Every structure is written in structure tokens, then in C-alpha cells.
């Protein structure tokens, strides 16, 4: 009896240990808890994807194809795209656009309107003149800026949805979707993930982050908010979220220096000069990444007070504001999901205005 008992114990232990081992390997092989990660370059930036799915690699390629297709249609940095044609026909004729371009133009007009022109999809002539995205940026003359300002008016984008066409009212006007196209691409990526039944993934298009679901274990994604004065990759706080788009704008993204003055890439469409609103960074959290993209630019241009007012007016949208004097403000709805983390004690966290 004793011997049988000992034997029984040994057998039991052996079975349970080996079963445990088996389970673990099987889990690793088939489950979607193993992330697939991919990085690639498009839309003038780096695009990272993390997908939890057995078919992840193929899905990530489809997403990249879609993004390149959007880029080709919406870019104004090379010719042949729909938006490029729209600009070329400015003041002359209507141009046929596909439904994506119509949708993005309508969204862009909407955000231009609610931000009172702090975001203006027609900022193109100024962006071109400053050349912030070119190899040779320069400071335009005050006269030049004044002339170009007369071309900046989102109301001059005339959209005729019934015939899927649009037109710019005046000659030399230029639509620039640079502040919104990446946001749109992010939403399209999430659509593709959903079509392929992915439950858990995120895409990072040059810092525009769009989250699908939560992590496979059900926990929330953790997204750092870039420290505007620290090196790349450092952050001043962490947002925990699922199924959200998180997009930032800041003076650290692209800039050039001349005679000791830093000129950053976000041009205030109302003044013609780089936005000088007292902010060095804004982050917007919303359901759609196209919204977050336009609103992060708009709030950066508007500044703390007006930017905060705009965000608080909108349902389901939250934001983080970082001021030049290194104070961090958040909207009310974000207090439970934002965690201030400043290892260098450089910033001051002011929850309320």
C-alpha cells in the first residue's frame, strides 16, 4: 500500500509537470499572445505596427499597401495625385476625387471651421514658402507672408459631393493635407485590422498612435507622451487606453535654426509664422485618429486657454497641454488615465487650470 502510494505520487507529479510544460509550448505556438512587429517608411515618416494575430505579417503588408495608396493620392510633394491635381486646377476647374479624398477634405474643412482657422487645410502656400519640409528652409519676407495669407482660407475649398468633385476658388491656392492625412491613414489601418478579425493591435504612424482593442491579456495599452525638451523616446507621462487614437504636435518635431532663433514646422495659418502660443507640445486622445490629428495641430496653434476650451466642447475628446514654462495641463476626463512621470523633476503637473 505504501509503495503504491509513493508510486502514485510520483506518477501524479510527473504527469502534472509534463502536462504543464506541454500546455506552455502549445500556448506559445498557436496563440496570438505573441506579437508581430514591423517597421517601414512611408508618408515621410516611420510606421510601426504591432499585431497579435497568426496572420499578422500578411495583414501588416496590406496595411502598408493601403497607406502608400493614400500617400500617393494625397501628397503634394510629388505630382500625379488627386490633391496635387486639385491644387494644379486651383481657380480654374473642378477635379474628380475618390471618396477618401472627399471625406478627408470635408473633415479638414470641419476642423478648420471649429478651430476658427487655427487649423486651416489651405495653409499650403505658407508651408511651401517656409520650406520647413525641404532641405533648404528659409524665412520669407514679411511682404511675401502678407501676400500668401490672402490665399489661406478653408472656405475656398468647394466640395460637390453629388458629383464627387472639388475645386479651389482662387488661383495659387494650395490644399495641404499634411496635418490630417496620417490621421486618416491610421483609421484605415484599424479598419483593415478589423476586417481581418484582429482583436489586438496598434499602429504608430510617425508618432500618431491608433490602438485597436486592448492588449491580449485584457490590460490597457500604455502610451508615453513625449517629453518635448528631452531626447527622442523620452516621455513626461503615460496614457492608459484602448480603442483610442493618440496624436501629438510639438515644436520639437521639425524645425530649423537661423541666427539663434528656432523656427518650427507648425505654421499658424492666421499669422503666417510658426505658431507662438506658449505651448511646446499637445496630445489629443479621441476615437478617430483623423480627428486627433487635426485637433492636435489646432490646439497647438490655439494655445492653452483656447485649445482647452475647444477640446472641452467636444464629446469623447481629451488632451494634454505642455507649456513653454514646463507645466502640464490635462482635460478633466483624462485624470484617471494619465499618469505624470517625470524622472528629472523638470516639469510641473498642474491638473487644473
Amino acid at each position, binding site marked *: *500500500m*505504501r509503495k503504491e*502510494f*509513493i508510486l502514485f*505520487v*510520483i506518477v501524479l*507529479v510527473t504527469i502534472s*509537470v509534463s502536462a504543464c510544460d506541454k500546455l506552455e509550448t502549445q500556448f506559445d505556438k498557436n496563440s496570438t499572445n505573441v*506579437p508581430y*512587429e*514591423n*517597421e*517601414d*517608411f512611408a508618408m*515621410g*515618416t*516611420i510606421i*510601426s505596427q*504591432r499585431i497579435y494575430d497568426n496572420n499578422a505579417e500578411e495583414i501588416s503588408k496590406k496595411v*502598408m499597401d493601403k497607406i502608400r495608396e493614400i500617400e500617393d493620392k494625397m501628397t503634394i510633394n510629388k505630382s500625379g495625385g488627386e490633391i496635387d491635381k486639385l491644387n494644379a486646377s486651383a481657380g480654374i476647374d473642378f477635379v474628380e476625387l475618390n471618396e477618401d479624398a472627399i471625406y478627408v477634405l470635408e473633415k479638414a474643412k470641419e476642423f478648420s471651421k471649429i478651430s476658427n482657422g487655427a487649423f486651416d487645410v489651405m495653409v499650403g502656400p505658407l508651408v511651401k514658402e517656409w520650406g520647413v519640409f525641404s*532641405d533648404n528652409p528659409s524665412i520669407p519676407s514679411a511682404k511675401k507672408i502678407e501676400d500668401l495669407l490672402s490665399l489661406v482660407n478653408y472656405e475656398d475649398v468647394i466640395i460637390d459631393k453629388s458629383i464627387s468633385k472639388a475645386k479651389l476658388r482662387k488661383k495659387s491656392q494650395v490644399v495641404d493635407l499634411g496635418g490630417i492625412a496620417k490621421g486618416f491613414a491610421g483609421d484605415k489601418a484599424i479598419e483593415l485590422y478589423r476586417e481581418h478579425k484582429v482583436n489586438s493591435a*496598434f499602429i*504608430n504612424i510617425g*508618432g*500618431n*498612435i491608433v490602438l485597436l482593442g486592448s*492588449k491580449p491579456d485584457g490590460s490597457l*495599452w*500604455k*502610451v*508615453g*507622451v*513625449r517629453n518635448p525638451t528631452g*531626447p*527622442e*523616446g*523620452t*516621455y513626461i507621462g*503615460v*496614457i492608459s487606453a484602448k480603442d483610442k487614437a*493618440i*496624436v*501629438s504636435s*510639438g515644436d*520639437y*518635431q*521639425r524645425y530649423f535654426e537661423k541666427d539663434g532663433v528656432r523656427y518650427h514646422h507648425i505654421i499658424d495659418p492666421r499669422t503666417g509664422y510658426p505658431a507662438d502660443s506658449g505651448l511646446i507640445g499637445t*496630445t489629443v486622445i479621441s476615437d478617430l485618429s483623423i480627428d486627433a490629428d487635426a485637433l492636435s495641430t489646432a490646439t497647438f496653434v490655439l494655445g492653452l486657454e483656447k485649445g482647452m476650451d475647444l477640446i472641452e466642447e467636444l464629446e469623447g475628446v481629451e488632451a494634454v497641454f505642455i507649456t513653454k514654462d514646463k507645466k502640464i495641463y490635462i482635460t478633466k476626463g483624462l485624470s484617471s488615465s494619465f499618469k505624470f512621470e517625470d524622472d528629472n523633476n523638470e516639469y510641473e503637473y498642474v491638473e487644473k487650470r
Partner: protein
Amino acid sequence: MSMNMLKKGDIILLGIIAAAIVISFAVVSTYKRSGKDTDKVAVIKMKDEIIKSIDLSTVSQPQQIEISGKYIQVILVERGRIRFLDADCPDKICVNTAWLSEKGDMAVCIPNSTMIKIEGQSDKVDAVTH
């Protein structure tokens, strides 16, 4: 079944089995955890092509790697860490990113379409918005 049916030797044997189980679990989990820390693989990519993959834990001598595309970049690899050391690109964001040593760390040069990444995921954040 009561314990007094077992002899002293049997109890010792059971004790040994129990101890062996506990020790083996401890060893396995320690081994797994240490693997997590030391097994750092840096991947150098240009566009979507992997140029080089380096296990940083096995680097014995510092070495430099030059990549040429539109711009020329020099990468420095040391044991456990890697960085862009120098580049003739305009912004030098890649160089300013400095050392990469943790899983998920990444340095990117957009004008040259190159990047270095340490494979795996950071425990701290999944991504950083900028």
C-alpha cells in the same frame, strides 16, 4: 490512508521529491527571466530590409558599422548597447537619440530610411506619441 502507514524513509523520499520539484521550478523560472534580460537582439533596417541583426550580449569588442544610402551613417555597437554615432544627414535626430539598450528602444533616420531597434517590447510603455 493515514500517515502512520508510511515509514520514515518514505517520508524522506517524499520530501526529496518535493524539494526537487521546488528547486527545478526555481531554476527554470530564473533561467527564463535571465534570458529575458540578456537576450537582446539589435536589428538594423533600411526601408523594410534587415541589413544586420546583432545579439548584443555576445559583442566582445566595440565595432563600427557604416551604412550608406542617401546619407552616410556610422553605427557603434558595444556589449549590451548600440547607437548611431555619426551621420551626415541634416537633423541628426538618429545621433541625438543616443544609446539603445532596452527592449523596444529605437533610433530612426527618416531622410535615410534607416533604423536600429532592439527587438522585443518595453515593459514600461507600448509606444510614445510625438
